[in-house]
């Protein structure tokens, strides 16, 4: 089993070396003439205005939150699906209850407009 993962390790090292190698070659080839205006933050040619860390709305967090909860649900779903043929009807009922409870959460978010992008 570890043999397969050794391949993944080597593969990730080589995959990581692609951008590093490419960027190093580009670093050697490209011209370097920085300038005051050139290195300014790009905002359609205007001077930068106000703080960079603008205040984001909480909606982003709510989406991430619901995502985390459902991501964990899939963690339970995969072993269930793999073992399903050995388990039979009882497993289906258990999973049905599991999903139903979480769907209540989704419905709650839906009804309270937490899913609404405003």
């Amino acid at each position, binding site marked *: *089993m570890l043999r*397969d*993962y*050794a*391949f*993944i390790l*080597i*593969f*990730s090292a*080589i*995959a*990581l070396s*692609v*951008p*590093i190698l*490419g*960027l190093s*070659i*580009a670093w050697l080839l*490209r*011209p*370097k*003439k*920085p300038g005051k205006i050139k*290195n*300014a*933050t*790009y*905002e*359609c040619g205007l001077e*930068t205005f*106000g703080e*960079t860390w*603008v205040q*984001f709305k909480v909606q*982003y967090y709510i*989406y*991430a939150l*619901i*995502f985390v909860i*459902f*991501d964990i649900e*899939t963690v339970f*779903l*995969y072993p269930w*699906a*793999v073992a*399903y*043929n050995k388990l039979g*009807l009882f497993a*289906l009922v258990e999973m*049905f209850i599991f*999903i139903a409870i979480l*769907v209540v959460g*989704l419905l709650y*978010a*839906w009804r309270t407009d937490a*899913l*609404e*992008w405003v």
Partner: protein
Amino acid sequence: MQFLDNLFLNISQVIRNLVGGFLPDWGVEVVMMTVAAAVLVVIAVVTMMFLTWMERKVVGRIQDRLGPNRVGPFGLMQPIADMVKMFIKEDITPREANRWVYNLGPIVVVPPAILALAVIPFGRGLSGADLSIGWLYLAAVASTSVIGIFMAGWGSRNKYALLGAMRAAAQIVSYEIPQVLSVVGVILIAGSLSMQRIVEAQNVWFVFLQPVAFIIFLIASVAEIERSPFDLPEAESEIIAGYHTEYSGLKFGMFFLAEYISTFAVSAIGATMFLGGWRGPVLPGWIWFLAKTYLLVFVVLWLRGTLPRIRVDQLMNFAWKVLVPLALANLLVAGLIAAIINPAETPGFWTFIGFLLGNLLLIAAVVMVGVLRAPEMEASEAAVVGAKGALAGQ
């Protein structure tokens, strides 16, 4: 035919014998793995270059243009010219940027896209590694791509870049759920997460057993790789160019590289999980695999050429209020049918009929809900528009 089918396995055997002459066993293993990994990486880069050309040709034809046709025959050398340009462009690092995070961003973005190729079966026994957690590995690797986007957005110290990164993350995260849920039906029938096992289980292509899941998977995947019509985070008309606003030269090219490799990877995954992967009559497996993959790539390009970009609130609503409930319903239907007819033991024809009936019922239910809710939806839409108009009037 037999020879062509085993072409790559034979080549690998030749290399193994060649190296085996003067290296110990573990050395041979390491050399073989490195060679395989290097080949996969080369495939990734060449695919990216081919896809940029293909995209411009296909979209050009859709828009009644010729596309690139100056450099080389049919403009085939265009990607090379583009690459040379990328390499010799001046690189601009904004003064305000956090140098470490800014420069690491493009480096972190690329590996997740390439790593997906490790478990994709290009033919019988022809995959980098046949992991037992196959699909879970793909989902896990794909989910790490958000990190590079965050690094690019935060490191640039540009509010549009940061906003683009936030939007991209929210979108990727939202569409990941329907994507991972839609595949559960396939895993349930195949009884394994391993990609090779999933291909071997497809006596009937899973697209016929799980058509609804296939459509959900396709839509969610196109959204995951931020391609049109879901390309809001990097749409010029929305927020300059999103998280890669500040990047130039090859650093910008790296984001492109990642995007095109992901397009290929997602199509390959779709072909493997739903279209039978390398299985097919007469021709060698890897030709079947490439044909199916490029069919899906073409569909993705076609979507870009045809559909207008959707609005950001529609984007999020579609993920959470349409795709997620549909994926959950599909999962329960699949579970129910698999409980009635055990797909591992029933002959293919009856499995096919059973799942087809289930999916038809599901689609009928969806249409019913749509018809019933249509007036209500229109009313709520009108209310929202009215409220926005009132706000604008103030």
